[in-house]
């Protein structure tokens, strides 16, 4: 570990804290449906879209309609994607004459992009036609991110509104978020990336002569634009197979820092939006603080473990940290932080290979995801997931001060507890269930590359990444099989929508409730005590379930490494 490494981590956090309020305020305007400085430019586009589709943005929906419209929208996009992938051989923009995508892979990929997971069981350049890339996949980078943020808005409205039946208009939310948030941010970020040498061209490749005199064809493309939304929307599906480790995606340390910032940017801002929406920005800061504490602890462990390196190699006379699978231009701190950020935020972009991390260094990304992607989390999904934990925390804590529990002015009762537990239980059920199945059935056992606990970690990581809608791969697992394609597809779908439906039901239930002003008898949900309680609940309720699986995976792996045994 070095001073520069820690400085990077602290600077990163400091910049985020500075950006939280302006980002949050911008999104609050969208949440409220207020005009923004971009309205003179983009307003006509928005109204034109409504006129074209027959949507009345002022006609708000109750939670059921909101949920149905959201599902229909996503299901429609899923089917369209599946159809395009299955028929790409007969469709235009297929210069390399690629065949139709196999059913299991097409299903897996369609679900993956719809659910904001961007798990990729394929190598893009060898599988997807240009049409598939542009129409079938890239569009999801915007729609799945906008869906997540819209859902967070819906939940905020549940908390903020009093005795209301409606929680917003899904179409208006998605349109505004895409037009006034995702699009302009993507443009800005893409320009920044281009300035740093990231290619943005329609040319397929460039030929170069190497130092040795050999001729090499280097792939190019509209990288910068895709890179921007990949990170801002916590999508994570890279243009190149090497993702953000590739110099054309992430050329230098500065772009590396900005990439990490852009992964967290919207999710961090949304916590402020939440606070503002419920009338007290400090409520949002408290949530952000709890998230960042969990994040900082995790990041420190990764950095410490990666910097400490592998004692077996040290024994062989190779000192230093663990550089296996890392890019020299980012170093250990830049890679460790990136791994923590991308898994904390359900992004899944990588600038180093997590499989090559030390056992405990690789365990932190795993835990980040197993906690339900609530440590900052994906755009929208992070904050609504965290609020589910907040509901449980407030329930227990409220009882401890002798009051029936309330949070930001809403009583938390049996219905909210039931729905929150339901949403939270989905994760362990699917992650552990599917991992256990894959750990005993031959189809599953065929997947992992390594033996022993490391192989187990590979399976566990895949399902964790899928259910948590992260999409990062541990690598080492051969996932392009009907078993994994199918099961991971199902896992991603459940992990996204089986959390969303109970969450929206909570939003509806809360919106209908009376406002209960906080009195001296209700404990403040803004102070350090509350932040500590949130951290505790997330770890105990969200994390304790996974302890046996972690013990048999990365912990066993780590202990074996100490004893000189590698897998």
């Amino acid at each position: 570990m070095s001073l520069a490494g820690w400085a990077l981590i602290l600077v990163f956090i400091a910049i985020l804290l500075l950006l939280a309020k302006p980002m949050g305020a911008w999104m609050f305007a969208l949440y409220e449906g207020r005009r923004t400085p971009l309205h003179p430019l983009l307003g006509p586009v928005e109204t034109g879209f409504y006129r074209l589709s027959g949507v009345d943005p002022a006609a708000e929906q109750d939670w059921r309609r909101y949920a149905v419209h959201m599902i229909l929208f996503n299901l429609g996009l899923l089917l369209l994607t599946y159809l395009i992938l299955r028929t790409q051989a007969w469709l235009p923009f297929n210069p390399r004459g690629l065949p139709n995508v196999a059913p299991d892979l097409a299903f897996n990929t369609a679900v993956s992009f719809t659910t904001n997971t961007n798990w990729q069981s394929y190598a893009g350049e060898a599988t997807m036609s240009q049409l598939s890339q542009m129409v079938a996949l890239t569009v999801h980078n915007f729609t799945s991110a906008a869906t997540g943020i819209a859902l967070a808005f819906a939940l905020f409205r549940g908390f903020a509104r009093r005795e209301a039946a409606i929680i917003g208009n899904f179409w208006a939310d998605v349109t505004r978020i895409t037009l006034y948030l995702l699009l302009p941010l993507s443009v800005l970020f893409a320009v920044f990336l281009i300035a740093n040498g990231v290619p943005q061209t329609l040319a397929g490749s460039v030929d170069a002569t190497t130092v040795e005199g050999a001729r090499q064809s280097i792939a190019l493309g509209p990288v910068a634009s895709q890179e921007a939304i990949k990170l801002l929307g916590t999508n994570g599906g890279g243009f190149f197979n090497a993702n953000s480790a590739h110099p054309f995606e992430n050329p230098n340390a500065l772009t590396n820092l900005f990439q990490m910032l852009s992964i967290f940017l919207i999710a961090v801002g949304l916590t402020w939006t939440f606070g503002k929406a419920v009338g007290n920005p400090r409520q949002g800061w408290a949530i952000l603080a709890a998230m960042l504490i969990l994040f900082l602890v995790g990041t420190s462990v990764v950095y410490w473990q990666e910097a400490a390196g592998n004692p077996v190699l040290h024994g062989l006379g190779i000192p230093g940290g663990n550089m296996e699978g890392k890019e020299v231009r980012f170093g250990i701190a830049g890679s460790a932080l990136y791994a923590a950020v991308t898994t904390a935020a359900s992004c899944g972009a990588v600038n180093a290979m997590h499989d090559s991390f030390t056992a405990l260094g690789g365990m932190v990304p795993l835990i980040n995801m197993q906690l339900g992607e609530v440590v900052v989390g994906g755009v929208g999904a992070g904050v609504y997931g965290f609020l589910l934990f907040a509901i449980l925390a407030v329930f227990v804590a409220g009882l401890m001060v002798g009051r029936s529990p309330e949070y930001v002015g809403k009583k938390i009762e049996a219905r909210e507890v039931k729905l929150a537990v339901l949403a939270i239980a989905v994760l362990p059920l699917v992650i552990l269930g599917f991992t256990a199945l894959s750990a005993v059935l031959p189809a599953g056992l065929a997947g992992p590359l390594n033996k022993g606990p490391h192989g187990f970690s590979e399976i566990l990581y895949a399902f964790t990444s899928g259910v948590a809608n992260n999409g990062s791969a541990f690598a080492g697992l051969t996932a392009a099989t009907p078993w994994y394609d199918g099961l991971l597809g199902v896992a991603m779908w459940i992990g996204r929508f089986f959390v969303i439906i109970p969450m929206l039901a909570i939003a509806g239930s809360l919106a209908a409730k009376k406002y209960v002003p906080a009195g001296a008898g209700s404990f403040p949900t803004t102070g350090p005590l509350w932040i500590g309680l949130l951290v505790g609940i997330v770890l105990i309720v969200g994390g304790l379930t996974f302890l046996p699986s972690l013990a048999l995976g990365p912990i066993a792996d780590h202990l074996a490494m100490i004893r000189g045994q590698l897998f």
Partner: protein
Amino acid sequence: MVRSQSLFTADLMIPAIGNAFRKLDPRALVRNPVMFTTAVVATLLTLLLAVGDSGLGRGFEAQLVAWLWLTVLFGTFAEAIAEGRGRAQAESLRATKADLRAKRMLGVGETWELVPAGWLEAGEIVLVETGDLIPGDGEVIEGVASVNEAAITGESAPVIREAGGDRSAVTAGTRVISDRIKVRITAQPGQGFLDRMIALVEGAQRQKTPNEVALTILLVGLTIIFLIAVATIPGFAAYAGGSVPVAMLAALLITLIPTTIAALLSAIGIAGMDRLVRFNVLAKSGRAVEAAGDIDTLLLDKTGTITIGDRQATDFRAIGGTSAEALAEAALLASLADETPEGRSIVAFARERHHVATVELPADAEIIPFTAQTRISGVKLGGSTIIKGAVDSVLKALSQPPFVSSEVESRSRGETSLDVARNERPGESELRRVTDEIARAGGTPLAVVRDGRLLGAVHLKDVVKAGVRERFAELRRMGIRTVMITGDNPLTAASIAAEAGVDDFLAQATPEDKLALIRREQQGGKLVAMCGDGTNDAPALAQADVGVAMNTGTQAAREAGNMVDLDSDPTKLIEIVGLGKQLLMTRGSLTTFSVANDVAKYFAIIPAIFAALYPGLAVLNVMGLTTPQSAILSAIIFNALIIPCLVPLALKGVRYRPIGAGPLLARNLGIYGVGGLIAPFVGIKLIDLAVGGLGLA
């Protein structure tokens, strides 16, 4: 009166143990899903043990099974002992009820027939004479009697029950000790107060309260999550090339699911109701007790709650050249026949302060009694008329007969009756000024008039009860706003409110104002508590979230409230709020404790079951438990024994301190959260040493 009872006595324990076994009935057990799961696991392991050995040794497995069953039994025992505390009381009540006989009126003259009380229908009329027990809840429609209500309230001093007014309600099982009354029965058979009380103390008709339901859902959710965590372990173990014996998985599951709080949950609820009963408050539902903990606004009647209720004379304010002595003498004369506390205090004050010598009225004195119409009282003696009363009442009386003589006097002074009506009476403005001053100081002015001449006013002062100020400060720390309700004018009300330290007041309050205030508070999301006894309080009692009716109150009030205070002590609302908070706090604290325990249990069991697969995992055995078997046994024993250890806490409740929500949370989180993390590490280690020492595993 608070009845105390020690927690564990033989006559409580023995039936409780029997009942603990009786409660193993699956139909009863299924109401508690976590304990039901434990029982199912215990049953399966018992069957497995009967079939054969799974490789861990029969002795070990038999111990495991035994401790699993004990876990379930400790849970049912906790509930049984909580119920047992109320049962003794219920039995004596039931005996009272069984013996009740009624003299049912036949509707012809004064004839009656003797029938069992259980035959009485609502609307029938019974005769109750000296020495009889009142056979059913009802209302006195004829007569006055003193009644001993000790059977219900535990208070042996008799109370007066009379037809009409606010003291007409009588309760079954109480004894008439003098006179005779006729009572119209108001309760249907089996639905009387006595029946409700029996059901309440026994916990027979106990329904889960909303908060209990929510907590149960959370516990079920945690059970499901841990069920998933344990059920997937065989798959993981298989991957590692080994297997985990079923008995060990069962032990892991039972230690992880929140058995501690689940076992104590219903005991906490029963004990909470029981505490109220011991406090001589009957809650009609557990929901009301929970609501008490959430109260934001407390409505308190001034008289009897904040002030002593009897106003005392503290000053004589003479006007218009009248000497204080003359005023004092007139006031004394007007009050000698006045037997009210106010009247007596005027007499006493006139004698002590102004040394008025008159001891009694002359024989020819004619008393003017207080009536609801005139609202004045006084005396006529030797051709002189003295009256006293509220300022407006006195002025009104002066302009009407029999005070026409004053009109004659004024006419002789050259004034017309028109002038009298139009102009002020001499000294009236000065009287107004004086009485306003009295009101502003929190007092009630009484005007005194002699032969039509305004002499001045008596300052009657409301005396604020000792210690109420401190209680309101305590309530403020609890986060509760107090509102004083009074019929006084705003000036008097404001002054008393300031003296007593209440947060707000409602002056000149009518029952409608009271109801409107409650509605307004509730509209703003506040929960409101109030107490009352009169029939006109009934709508407000029904509207309030917690309505405590005084036992001395009318039947209508007792029906409208959701609690009845048998001691009829309005200040008890404060304790009721504390009890409600205590109930919720006990639940929350034990839930936190139960969940926090899981960390240590993981550290005990995970290395025990996985070290065979990966020997390196033995380092997770931070407690240094001797063998895997001993580790598992110790964890399961700790998990079982913690239940009876916490029974006293569950029954007594976590102590509530009015120190504000933040510090309270910090305190409980420290004790039950951090304590819950640490305690099992210590406990399991100690049990492991004992298990090793005894050679159990």
